[in-house]
Each structure stands twice: as C-alpha cells, then as structure tokens.
C-alpha cells in the first residue's frame, strides 16, 4: 500500500511538470504581457520596457519555466501582478469560498442524487423511475448558466427571496456566529442549488446504472434467499457494492466541480477562485494563472489518487502494492 502511494505520487511529478510546461508554452505564445495591463497611459515607451523587464517578460521561455519550477518547489509562486501580493495569498483569499460552494454542492448532489438513483433503480420502469430519470436528464442537459439565470430571475429578482449577489452581508461581519452562518447560508441557497442539481443529476444517473447492474448480481439473490428484508438487501448488500464505482466518480467530479463553480461564481457574483482565474487570464496576470492552475492540477491529481485509495477501502478485493 505504501509503495503504491509512493509510486503514484512519483508518477504525478512528470504529469504535473507536463501540465505546467504546456501551460507555460501557451502563455508564452499569448500576445500581451502583464505589463500591458498596468500601463498608465502617460508612461513612456522606455518605462513600459523597464516594467516588462522587471516582470521577467523578456526572459527566454525555458528559463522562466525552470525558474518557476525551482521557486515553486520551495513554495514560492511569485507575486500576483494586479494584487501586488504573493500568489499564495491571493489564492488563499478565494479558495475558501470556492471550497465551501463546491463541497456544499457536492453534498447536495450526493444527498439527492444517490438516494434517487437507488430508488429509481430498484423500481425500474415505475413512475418514480421515469420521473427521476427525466429529472436527471434535464439536469445534465440544461446549461448551468441558463438554469442559474432562470433561478436568479425568479427567486432573487421577481420574488426577492434571496440576495442577488455575494456571499455574506458585510454589515453582519461582526455579528455572532449563528447570524453569520445563517446569512451565508441564505446567500448560498441559489448557487448551491444550481451546482448541486447538476451534480445530483449525474450522481443519480451513475447510481442508477450502477445499482441496476449490482441488483442483478448473484450475491444480491443470495441475500434475499437468506430471508433478509428488502431494505437490508438493497441498502446493505447492493448499495455497498454499487457505491464502489460512485467513489471513482467522486474523484473525477472534483475538477468538474471546480469548473462548474467557475460558471456559478460568475453568475452569482461570488468571490471565488473561478472568477479570480478568469480575471487573471484577461489581465495577463501570469503568476496568478500559473499558481491557480498548479493548485487545480495538484488537487485533480490527488483527487484521482484518493479516489483510487477509497476505492480500495470500499472494495476489499482491491489491494495495491
């Protein structure tokens, strides 16, 4: 097990370097540099040149890449150009919110999608099944932004039940813990609904097909033959096995979740990484772009590893060495 983890982590290194290398190559090809964005119109051509030099824009690309890797290995990701502070600090400002949004949505997705998937698999071709399948189909087919816009219009604008933007009321920032939590929850209802429903839809589809497969297995029949209650058969015997592929999906859904968060953050004006990265790209804030991507890649790589390990935990047949 330990050697497996070591090997997997070791394999991540070339993959990570590969990702960053391609990213560097892309940014190298990008027209415009960070200095463009800061230019005060009254700056002279030489002054601009000097700034570009300071931001290292004129160094050859391999040298930049190499320096970045060396610095990053020491935990130094450089300074965000627009924020004038370390990239890690900027990421730190936003990651919490993105994490909150994503994890809540994931939770909602699991809590809705998985039970729905089970019910619809165990009652295949029943009305419940059809309803759930249609729900899931709509969930995966409705563009998230479209859904978000509709919700925003209906619940935030027309009915004014929820705030239109933001994550917290700044005036409540000194209020007690409970008030602040409730306030945050109030702000998160719509975004989490959007992201959570998309998640729920895909979890539902996945659970359903996984359950359908498992229900037909011999050991489920064995469990029934033992005289167990149908509930026990489904939720203990069948679901424990159906869960195994869902765990893999969980691992793979992390990167997608972050992308989804990006759309949602944009529409609901949430202070998250998604917005920060879009902005960083358009401002040619390369250190921040690199930092965010490095972090996301690492998260993705580790999510895959953790999914594999959880997989092994859930399925005693799998032993890594």
């Amino acid at each position: 097990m330990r050697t497996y983890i070591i090997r997997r982590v070791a394999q991540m290194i070339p993959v990570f370097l590969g990702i960053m290398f391609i990213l560097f190559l892309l940014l190298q090809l990008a027209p415009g540099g960070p200095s463009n964005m800061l230019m005060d119109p009254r700056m002279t051509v030489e002054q601009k040149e000097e700034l570009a030099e300071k931001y290292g824009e004129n160094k050859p690309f391999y040298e930049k890449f190499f320096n970045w890797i060396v610095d990053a290995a020491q935990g130094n990701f450089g300074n965000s150009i627009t924020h004038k502070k370390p990239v890690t600090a900027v990421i730190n400002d936003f990651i919490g919110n993105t994490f909150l949004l994503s994890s809540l949505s994931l939770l909602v997705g699991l809590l809705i999608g998985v039970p729905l998937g089970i019910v619809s698999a165990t009652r295949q071709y029943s009305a419940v099944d059809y309803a759930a399948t249609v729900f899931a189909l709509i969930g995966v087919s409705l563009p998230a932004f479209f859904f978000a816009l509709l919700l925003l219009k209906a619940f935030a604008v027309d009915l004014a039940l929820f705030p239109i933007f933001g994550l917290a009321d700044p005036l409540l920032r000194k209020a007690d813990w409970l008030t602040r939590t409730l306030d945050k929850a109030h702000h998160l209802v719509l975004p989490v609904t959007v992201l959570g429903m998309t998640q729920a839809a895909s979890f539902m589809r996945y659970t359903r097909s996984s359950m359908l497969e498992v229900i037909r297995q011999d050991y489920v029949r064995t469990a029934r033959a033992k005289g167990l209650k149908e509930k026990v058969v489904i939720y203990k015997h069948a679901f424990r096995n159906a869960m195994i592929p869902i765990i893999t999906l969980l691992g793979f859904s992390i990167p997608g979740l972050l992308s989804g968060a990006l759309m949602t953050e944009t529409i609901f004006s949430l202070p998250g990484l998604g917005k920060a990265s879009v902005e960083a790209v358009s401002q040619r804030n390369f250190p921040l772009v690199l930092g965010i991507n490095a972090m996301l890649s690492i998260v993705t790589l580790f999510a895959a590893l953790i999914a594999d390990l959880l997989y092994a935990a859930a399925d005693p047949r799998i032993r890594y060495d």
Partner: protein
Amino acid sequence: MSTRTDIVNRRLLKKDKNVESFWANVFKQFKRNKLAVVSTYIVLAIVLACIIVPMVSPYSLEQTDTANRAQAPSRSHWLGTDNIGRDLFTRLFIGGRISLGIALAVVTLECIIGIVLGTLAGYYGGIVDGIIMRISDIFLCFPFLIICIVIVSIFSSGPATLILTLSILSWPSIARIVRAQILSLRELEYMEACEALGISDFKRMFRHLLPNVMAYIIVYATLGIAATILTETSLSFLGLGIRFPIPTWGNLIQPARELVVIQKYWWYWMPSGIAIFLTVMCCNIIGDALRDAVDPKMKR
C-alpha cells in the same frame, strides 16, 4: 453445389433476411425506445432547419433592419430582431449551424485522435502504452474550463481555435475507453484465434478490435456532442468562445447576462436557450438509448 452457388449469389445480390448483423440488431433495439426515436427526429429536424433556414431566409447574416431594432417577434421577424436590427430567426439557425458544426467537428477530431492513440496504447502495451497514458494524464488533469479560457481568450477565437482546443483537451477520455476495451478484447479467445490463424496486426486492429469498440465510441460520440454543445455555449456565454459576429447558440444567449435583458427582451435568449436544451437533451437521450442497445447487459 448449385444450391450453394445460389446461396452465394443470393447473398451477393440482395440481403438475406435471415442474416442479422450486429448493427441491425442494435438498430432494432434502438427503435424500441420510442423516446429515443422521437429525439432522433427532433435532432434531424433541427439539423435540417439549420441547413435550410439560412438558405431560404429573406435576411442575411449581417443585414441590419435599423427601423425595426430590438423588436419583439412579429410577422416579418419571426423571432424578433436584436439591438442593431438583425433578424434573430435567421441568426438562430446560422448559430445552430456553427454550434452543431463545432460540436460535430470536435467530436470527430477527438474520436480520431482518441481512437488512434487508444488503439496503439491498448494493442502494443508496454512503453507505447506508458507514454500515451502519461500524456493523456496530463490532458485529463488540465483544469478544463480554465485552460479553454486561457486559450480562447489569448488566441484569436475563430471556430478553428475552439475546435482544436476542445478536441485536444478531450481526446484522452476516448483514448481510455478504446484502450480499456482493447485490453479486454485482447483477452477474448477470438483474438487468440487470430494469432493462431496468423492474421496480420493491421487486420487484427482494424477488422477485429476496432469494430467491436466502435459501438462504445458511437455512444460516447453522441454523448460527446451533447457535452461539447454545453461547453461551447458555456464558453460563449462567458464571452470566451466563438464571438460575434459569428452567431452561435451560446453567444446568442449571452445578452441575458444582464438582468434587464432577461426581463425585457425574452426573444434575445429564450429561443437559443431552448435550442441548446432541446438538442443537448435529445443527444443525451439518443446516447443513452444507443448504450442500452449496444450493451446487452442493460437490455430490458
């Protein structure tokens, strides 16, 4: 001997109705799913409309009708006009051409890359497999949307850029499906029989392995079209995909980012929103039905 010649001739001249190939069987299964059949017709209708409407429409892509700017749907403009007076009905279907065309191109390209690399990796294994899989890891771990944003916002955002970007980012899934299938097919006894019969590598790959993987690829491709339409429209919605003046379903819906537009100009965004939703849903339904038809395990 003569009956035998008869049979051969009969077979060569016209189909023997006792013969039911795999695909005929899939098609039969597929037809049982009424919803999927309806979806197929809807998609066909949309595709057809996207081809025909721009050809017969009295309005062209650029033409502005300044007198009727931002008009609600009327007899002369079936879906109204936009803020500079272009006919939105025409633009909806031109947009459909682009959106569908892009989706088709992306899926085709990614399938080609994925199939070739996946086949090589699965068939030859060893170092070839190792290298291809590591590369695919790299692409799989790219933060998809963000890389798309980097690329399309940095480089000129023509359809070609978008197609290349999306297909280069998404081939690994296909490659993996193909590879996994080939790895398991390789274990089947008929592949061993090929070896024993001395069938060439080329024939083994393209006559024995690929056709068996094809079914999965087609399922994936159908679902991939749905996914690509969603990605493209999301990017366009963010203002990062294909951009004006080329209409796509995604950038037609973009004005709706302003609440004012949502409230006042429903015809700007509603039709393309519905078009996206309908197409994506139908593709998903078709994909699901195909999967059920292809995979006997899921059969009713």
